[in-house]
């Protein structure tokens, strides 16, 4: 029987990455003195080693074995957990990740880093071992992990529980596995065998005494019994070592006797460990339902059974409604109209629920994006020498998978900034009367169909004047202009803008914030900054929950229907004549409280005909993007509804001013307006007319 193992490699990789993530986060917890963590780290490393062994990834097996040995010593309490070791282990996790990524990409990985780490690990282990030796050989436990050189005779008593065969284990297989280790003599004991009448053919009444002559160690023998450990009474004793020196013989027998007595205890331990492993497994599967795939792998989603069940239920209801409606349709007359409308209502309800459930499948808790931050902050605070605590909140807030994948990098950037620019050094903090330890908080929550992610630090805040000075220096703002706080903070997102006095390798080159903003905008989100000097800053990222569906306001211009994303709409109003200002020719400004909002008639933008081309008494939908408001002139406001976004570029090409299309209830196609695109285009147009008009109107074509 041969199984093609390669088909399981993707799941091995996925599980390994999950394990590495777990190891990393547990290692970070370890610092804060969590004892349970070391066990989970060990288990994760062990499964990676096991998996790698199965598939023959020797590099991983060998390296992980070293890590495991170190972890094992920590677990047994033979080694105290020191900061230095944790750092080495964290580095080792990185190496394991490199190795496994190399397997995934089928490339060779950079071996120098791994060799370096291997040396470090070996050195740490060697220190431990030599110190153990100087302590004296009375501690014989270490010898169990060392390979046993001589041939020795082992006496094994194997008393299985009666139901052993029902668990799918076959003693014969165990014996043949033992026979591979060396020469065996098996004696079956039949004293428990009942009378023929009383025999249950599915039960096992025999027990065995095995004499094994082998070079293998006790651990090797135990491994053979690994699967039946819980279902039997197993005693393994070493009779004598044939070639060993007499002195060693004593220790071996010492050890043998100790192991003899400790076996039941160890079994209990093993049992409880398995239980706890199971418990953590289940929590993990609900917490981390899906492994975030890398961009180049085919994305897969692991979906909780509850979500699938609810889908099946909903489909069931939908089928019922459908059959009800079709039955109604076979002989319909006007008297049944009431049943029809109620049936249609039900259909609407079902569809909506189904849609929500399907969307929920794509939703992942944001902890996937947050996971990497403890490590990041840990490393960065090491590097910068700042003492920083990271608080994660709202990790269970769910977010669309695509959005999640794309928000990771911008968030990393913001957190880096918070560490590097936000939090001050301990001395400065104490001098300013703040606790020496800085705090960075990552918070995620839902707010009206959007997800909000807040990155908050209690650092020095943004120096408003420094930002303004820099902007004036760079020529972005003219000297003497007065700006609101928001406008000043928005300058941070200008390309090439950095107020950092020194450029560090973490941040400060002024590349990035504009990219952060662009990334967030491409996801249909926006970013706001709040900051108080001396108290800290908050970056607030607002994102749509999903990219596939959009809340839209349907508007009509002439015969065409357009959709304006609801998130961009500030308000809709009827124009009043006295508030209309005509500036330089075509451009019309509308006075909206303190703002002057340029009016963009959609018919003009898209070269179509409209009912009314008169700005007076027109309907204006005020939309905002990039902090710039414009009023879109439309003929009519229609319904608000959720629309499914379809791409135009699939069969045609991207159209300026249009972000996509959707299909309306009547089957017709409607265009979704690309508000930021329209505003930028309008600004460009305005600037062109502005310059051609010889600067007649100095300022304020676009207020």
């Amino acid at each position: 029987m041969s199984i093609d193992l390669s088909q399981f490699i993707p799941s091995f990789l996925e599980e390994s990455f999950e394990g590495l993530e777990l190891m990393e986060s547990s290692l970070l917890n370890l610092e804060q003195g969590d004892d349970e963590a070391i066990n989970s780290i060990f288990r994760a490393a062990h499964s990676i080693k096991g998996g790698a062994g199965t598939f023959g990834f020797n590099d991983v097996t060998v390296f992980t074995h070293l890590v495991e040995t170190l972890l094992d010593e920590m677990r047994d309490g033979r080694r105290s957990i020191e900061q230095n070791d944790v750092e080495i282990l964290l580095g080792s996790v990185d190496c394991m990740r490199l190795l496994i990524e190399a397997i995934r990409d089928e490339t060779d990985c950079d071996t120098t880093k791994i060799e370096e780490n291997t040396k470090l690990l070996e050195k740490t282990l060697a220190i431990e071992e030599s110190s153990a030796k100087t302590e004296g050989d009375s501690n014989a436990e270490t010898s169990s992990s060392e390979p046993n050189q001589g041939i020795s005779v082992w006496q094994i008593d194997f008393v299985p529980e009666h139901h052993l065969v029902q668990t799918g284990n076959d003693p014969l297989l165990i014996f043949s596995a033992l026979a591979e280790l060396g020469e065996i003599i098996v004696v079956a004991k039949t004293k428990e065998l009942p009378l023929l009448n009383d025999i249950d053919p599915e039960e096992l009444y025999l027990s065995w005494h095995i004499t094994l002559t082998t070079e293998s160690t006790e651990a090797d023998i135990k491994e053979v019994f690994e699967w039946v450990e819980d279902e039997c009474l197993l005693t393994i004793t070493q009779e004598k070592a044939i070639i060993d020196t007499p002195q060693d013989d004593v220790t071996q027998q010492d050890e043998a006797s100790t192991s003899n007595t400790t076996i039941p205890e160890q079994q209990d331990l093993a049992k409880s460990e398995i239980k706890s492993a199971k418990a953590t497994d289940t929590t993990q599967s609900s917490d981390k339902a899906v492994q975030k795939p890398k961009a180049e792998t085919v994305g897969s989603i692991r979906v909780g059974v509850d979500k699938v069940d609810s889908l099946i239920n909903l489909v069931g209801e939908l089928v019922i409604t459908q059959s009800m409606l079709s039955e109604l349709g076979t002989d319909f007359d006007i008297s049944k109209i009431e049943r029809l409308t109620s049936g249609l209502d039900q259909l609407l309800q079902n569809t909506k629920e189904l849609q929500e459930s399907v969307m929920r499948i794509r939703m992942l808790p944001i902890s996937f994006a947050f996971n990497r931050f403890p490590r990041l902050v840990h490393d960065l605070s090491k590097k910068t020498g700042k003492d920083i605590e990271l608080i994660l909140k709202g990790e269970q807030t769910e977010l669309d998978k695509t959005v999640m994948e794309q928000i990771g990098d911008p968030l990393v950037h913001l957190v880096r900034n918070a560490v590097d620019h936000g939090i001050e050094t301990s001395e400065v903090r104490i001098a300013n009367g703040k606790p020496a330890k800085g705090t960075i908080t990552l918070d995620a929550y839902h707010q009206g169909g959007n997800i909000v992610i807040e990155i908050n630090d209690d650092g020095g805040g943004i120096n408003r004047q420094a930002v303004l000075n820099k902007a004036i220096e760079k020529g972005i703002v003219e000297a003497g202009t007065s700006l609101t706080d928001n406008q000043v903070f928005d300058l941070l997102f200008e390309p090439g803008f950095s107020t950092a006095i020194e450029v560090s390798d973490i941040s400060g080159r002024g590349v990035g914030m504009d990219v952060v903003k662009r990334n967030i905008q491409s996801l249909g989100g926006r970013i706001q900054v709040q900051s108080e000097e001396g108290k800290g800053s908050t970056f607030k990222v607002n994102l749509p929950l999903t990219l596939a569906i959009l809340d839209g306001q349907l508007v009509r211009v002439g015969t065409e229907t357009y959709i304006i994303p609801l998130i961009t709409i500030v308000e809709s109003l009827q124009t009043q004549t006295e508030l209309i200002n005509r500036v330089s020719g075509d451009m019309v400004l509308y006075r909206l409280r303190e703002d002057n909002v340029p009016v963009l008639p959609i018919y003009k933008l898209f070269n179509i005909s409209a009912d009314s081309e008169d700005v007076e008494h027109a309907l204006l939908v005020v939309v905002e993007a990039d902090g710039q408001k414009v009023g879109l002139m439309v003929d009519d406001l229609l319904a608000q509804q959720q629309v499914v976004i379809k791409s135009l570029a699939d069969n045609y090409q991207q159209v300026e001013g249009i972000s996509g299309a959707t299909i309306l209830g009547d089957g017709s196609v409607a265009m979704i307006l690309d508000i930021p695109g329209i505003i930028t285009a309008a600004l460009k147009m305005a600037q062109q007319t502005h310059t051609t008009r010889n600067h007649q109107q100095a300022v304020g074509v676009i207020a």
Partner: protein
Amino acid sequence: MEQEREYLTFILNGEEFGVDILCVQELRVWSSVTELPNKPNYIKGVINLRGVIIPIIDLRLRFGQTPLEYNEQTVVIILRNQDKKRPMVVGIIVDAVSEVYKLDHKAIRKPPEFGNSIESCFLEGLASIEEKLIILLDSNSLLNHDELYTVNKESVMAND
């Protein structure tokens, strides 16, 4: 080597054109379209074809000829390319659909220089059947974003 291929022919401004039938997804009658803003004149708009949004192109306008009025008789040929990686579906408006012919590879002759009414990249060859001359269109370039949506300057001039 495939020797024989089938072509669907259609009438456009009195001439008979043929396209590889494997690229023809279906035939539809003209239905109203949703207009696209600031589009070239030959793009009439987009329609919803079972959940897929596809552009509709007036082939007369694309080839720089005067268009006809659209009515219930107007035929739209939905073309789909064979490229699995980048599928592309478009609808072309023609005057009428004519026949399906089986043509031998050898029966197709190279196209002569056509002036500027049809960009030569769309032409695959010429075939004569029963005294008729059929102009075969190259479905690969017809179903290519770059070529279909980039109009040769000369034919735009002809339009204007």
